């Protein structure tokens, strides 16, 4: 250690908060790419988005000739294309997002992370944006693929969309963004709950179980509340047909962003206030 690693000036100089954020983000990227669970979860998500979307659309095509006219008229050609994204892929990204925080609490690594970046809000921002960027890359690569494959399948029944059709491009980006926002919420829930099992249970309680419970409410509350659940709001972002009891794409995006903001705000407050 005779040779100084960093010059005195480099040590004494107070780096900007931007530099702290950049370093924390780079560090989070290194963490993500050096554990196997990331690769497996992302691979699983890719297979679900493209494979399951294609499979569900193919099943629809095979049943097409038995459909009634009203069913065909109300059919959203993207409904099944993003069926894999809305279900299993969301699960994989959700678990991975929770693990971004909870795995560090589980193995104690959080004391190193918070020791390295005591600016805790900035750290949360770095974790969230790094994970969001990774999910965005995955979803932006897979959503167009599943779109084109599924529409090619539907074209044989003259039910497919072209990317130039109204709403089509928006729906593809909507689906991609939907997955990113679910991932962001998952990181926030991981920071709030800290324990993997509890956080995963809470996240999927909200995304999967809550819609079922709300549907048990007396009418018309069940439908009115359902519109504003994060799961419905997310699905609305990638719809090209306006379904009853579903917000429009912009409304869905707005509502989901509301959930993101609320989760991250709560996570930031608790992360600063609680002992590591």
């Amino acid at each position, binding site marked *: *250690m005779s040779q*100084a*690693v*960093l010059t005195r000036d*480099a*040590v004494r100089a*107070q*780096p900007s*908060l931007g*530099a*702290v954020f*950049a*370093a*924390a983000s*780079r*560090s*989070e*990227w*290194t*963490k993500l790419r*050096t*554990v*196997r*669970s990331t690769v497996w979860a992302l691979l699983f998500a890719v297979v679900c988005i493209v494979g399951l979307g294609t499979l569900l659309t193919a099943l629809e095509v095979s049943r097409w000739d038995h459909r009634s006219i009203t069913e065909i008229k109300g059919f959203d050609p993207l409904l099944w294309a993003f069926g894999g994204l809305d279900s299993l892929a969301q699960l994989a990204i959700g678990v991975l997002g929770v693990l971004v925080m909870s*795995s*560090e609490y589980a*193995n*104690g*690594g*959080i*004391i*190193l*992370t*918070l*020791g*390295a*970046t*005591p*600016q805790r809000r900035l750290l949360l921002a770095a974790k969230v944006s790094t994970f969001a960027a990774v999910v965005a890359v995955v979803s932006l690569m897979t959503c167009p693929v599943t779109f084109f494959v599924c529409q090619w399948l539907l074209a044989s029944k003259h039910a497919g969309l072209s990317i130039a059709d109204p709403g089509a491009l928006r729906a593809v980006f909507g689906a991609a963004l939907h997955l990113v926002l679910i991932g962001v919420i998952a990181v926030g829930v991981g920071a709030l709950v800290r324990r993997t099992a509890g956080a995963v249970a809470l996240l999927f309680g909200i995304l999967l179980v809550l819609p079922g419970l709300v549907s048990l409410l007396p009418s018309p509350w069940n439908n009115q509340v359902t519109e504003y659940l994060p799961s419905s709001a997310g699905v609305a972002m990638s719809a090209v047909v306006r379904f009853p009891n579903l917000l429009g794409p912009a409304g869905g995006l707005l509502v989901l962003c509301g959930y993101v903001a609320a989760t991250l705000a709560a996570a930031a407050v608790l992360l600063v206030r609680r*002992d*590591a």
Partner: protein
Amino acid sequence: MIEASHLSKRYGQTLAVNDLSFVVGSGQVTGFLGPNGSGKSTTMRMIVGLDAPSSGAVTVDGQPYGQLRFPLRRVGALLDANAIHPGRSARSHLTWLADSNAIPRRRVDEVLSIVGLSDAAHRRAGQFSLGMGQRLGIAGALLGDPDVLIFDEPINGLDPEGILWVRHLLRSLADEGRTVLVSSHLMSEMALTADHLLIIGRGTMLAAGPVAELVERSSGHHVRVLTPAPEILGDILRAKGATVVTDGPEGLSVTGLEARDVGIIAAAADVTLYELSTQRASLEEAFMELTRDHAEFRAGEPVPS
């Protein structure tokens, strides 16, 4: 330099750390000593900003840790050697740590070689032994080449060679002018490693000062005398103001007089001495003496059968 002033931490009803004030200076190894559960780890967690003090404050080089940007360049800490993702290799672990404080990545290989883990760099941390985990934790603390180093029980799980290595490392870090704070519950280890001691029990500072001075102060010493006439000599010594306790049929344990004086008095009284020696308590005994009433968990007295 680390400075704590009136530092306290309360968990519900328990006062884990109670009004600690101390200064850890540079260029020496400061031992932080106390029985298990005495608040050493909690204090260290407050130093590096993981836990917020209930009251009081602690600063590193005059600044609260939470205000440091890229703190690993100023302060290196090993608080929990198990705090490593088991699926990550040693090298990847140190790489993310280096990235977080914009420390050049070539430093990762340097610290791996300093702690002797170069050959295990690509092995997953989950396969590491306790001792290797400690070495990896120490590598993490050294990563930013910091002026202040904090080690919580660094020799846990190390083999004798590893213990010797840590001792030399702590010494050389201090000799380079760095501030080194190292906790232990083993007085004997601290006697070999530290220059300065902070001794706590149940969150309260019991003693602080240079190692030699603490031994002197806390244990005192006594003079052991063997004589064929213990009763006669005992009475004479008591008359001179000494405290005398019988120790065996021919032995006396004398406090309050130096061995030299006991010898002069015995010669004047024409009493034969077989043995005259100064007995110093070991550091371990001094520590036990200090913390006797402050150990949180203590084995009961052996039950006579």
